[in-house]
């Protein structure tokens, strides 16, 4: 197979990516932070840091803690607010040749609506990832993501306020992930992003207190990969939406596992911290895999491991 015959393009419910590899919200800043290490134009998509209507200072430290093959974080959605995002950070990415996905978070359903409306018509945004699963903020966040009725309603409201494709990011902190995914589909979601972090904690034995100032944080990294795979597999079986899959992807083989479990695209999160050019390396690795296995379109393997 020649390189020119390979088609890496991905259509994630209307979000077109030149290849399946996205970088996850909150792990890649606004792209510029990683420009010294990789060619941003080589990425499938950059999902920018979660944006709220007003600026947020985030949680007090300690915010992060390394655990076995993973890490906990409780950043608390620190961000400069939607106006600063649009005026100071988005222009950098617009100048690049890369798909940009905004990530929005609100305290109330009205805030989600206002954010979607604010992004409407903004040049350079290909889609909206809905953060309904942040475990680290007091209001909103996770509480939206664990109740199917609220998931449906928030997706519906956002859809009513935007013409962009909408992709809710699902929380794994639920009993039945399929029920949540179906609710998102009912609300009109164009794609699903999964999974967000698993809620966890660590305790400092010396001080006899929780390590994180927020007490609980979100677990990410290779430690959560089996959970992410299982949930993507289950959702792919029952729901007809394209999935952007992630959770502890550290190399090309991991990425292929996610695709075989049903992910159309994959997202790199914590792995960016370990290898700042990981997303690019995986994109190259997928091309090599296609060449070696005579695959001209990766869609051929999406969900191939799923027994229907």
């Amino acid at each position, binding site marked *: 197979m020649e390189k020119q015959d390979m088609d890496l393009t991905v259509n994630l419910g209307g979000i077109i990516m030149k290849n399946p590899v996205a970088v996850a919200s909150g792990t890649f800043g606004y792209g510029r932070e990683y420009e010294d290490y990789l060619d941003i134009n080589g990425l499938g998509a950059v999902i920018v840091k979660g944006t709220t209507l007003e600026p947020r200072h*985030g949680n*007090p430290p300690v915010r*992060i803690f390394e655990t076995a*093959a993973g890490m906990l*974080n409780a*950043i608390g959605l*620190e961000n400069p607010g939607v106006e600063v995002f649009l005026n100071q950070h988005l222009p950098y990415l617009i100048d690049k040749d890369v798909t940009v996905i905004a990530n929005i978070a609100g305290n109330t359903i009205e805030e989600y609506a206002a954010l979607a409306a604010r992004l409407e018509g903004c040049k350079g945004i290909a889609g909206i990832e809905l953060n309904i699963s942040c475990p680290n903020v007091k209001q909103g966040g996770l509480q939206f993501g664990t109740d199917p009725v609220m998931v449906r309603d928030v997706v519906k409201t956002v859809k009513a306020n935007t013409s962009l494709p909408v992709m809710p990011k699902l929380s794994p902190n639920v009993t039945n992930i399929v029920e949540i995914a179906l609710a998102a589909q009912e609300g009109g979601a164009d794609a699903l992003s999964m999974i967000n972090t698993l809620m966890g904690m660590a305790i400092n034995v010396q001080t006899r207190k929780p390590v994180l100032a927020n007490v609980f944080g979100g677990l990410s990294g290779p430690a959560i990969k089996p959970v992410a795979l299982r949930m993507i597999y289950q959702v792919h079986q029952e729901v007809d939406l394209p999935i952007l899959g992630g959770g502890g992807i550290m190399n090309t083989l991991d990425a292929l596992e996610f695709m075989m479990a049903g992910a159309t695209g994959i997202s790199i999160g914590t792995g960016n*911290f370990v290898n700042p050019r990981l997303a690019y390396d995986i994109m190259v690795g997928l091309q090599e895999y296609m060449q070696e296995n005579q695959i001209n379109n990766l869609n051929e393997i999406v969900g191939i491991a799923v027994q229907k």
Partner: protein
Amino acid sequence: MPLQENGLVINHQQVAQDMYIMEFMAPAVARECQPGQFLHVRPGNTNDPLLRRPLSIYDADQEKGSISLLYRVVGAGTSLMTGIRENDYIDIVGPLGRGFTLPAPSKTALLVGGGVGIAPLVYLGRALIQRGCQVTAMMGAANENQLVAGDRLLEIGVPFLPVTMDGSRGYPGMVTDLLVPPVYPEEIVIYTCGPEPMMAKVAEYAQRYDIWGEVSLEEHMACGVGACLGCARRLKANDEAYVKVCKDGPVFNIMDVEF
């Protein structure tokens, strides 16, 4: 410009209990290293420990293309690092962060280091001497064996005053006990790195006598490049916003930090 490089380890030695100096060839990164900056070091190739470790640049030889790190074993990552041998490769990203500001050559620089905190002050001392500054180092440690950077400082041409808590070498007590009222405070600049109570005393001293100075802070980090916002710190208790030690620091003006 920071970059990722695989450094070829040419020397790795234990210099005290739990303290090691590793030197490796990384010419592209070495060329860029400024005093006070750090490298984000991957301790191994496995997923556990997972994250990189931020380590101060102890010394760099830009002509030779080598960088040295002085590190203390504090957990799983640094413990794994001790097994790295000569001719192994070490995966580094750097140099990262905002380093020290160099003063006018006419100034006298005071370096106050505690424990492994002496590390960034050594490379700073080299730059200050090259600049023509007068430099004196005050180096505190628990005991004689933990005073590890003395030879390197002498080689660079920085006289140092050793201080040990157990009195086994030099002045017995705390390194900050040596901070006496200056005759010409405007001629002095002060740089410090070490345990926070020590830096707090240095900051108090600088404030009292109105001495310009900088501190190098330490924080657990994930990305090291300002993306994850994990290494947040309020510089002053009443600040609303958090700085990121990796990107806004690790070096800060001594007057801007409340300990």
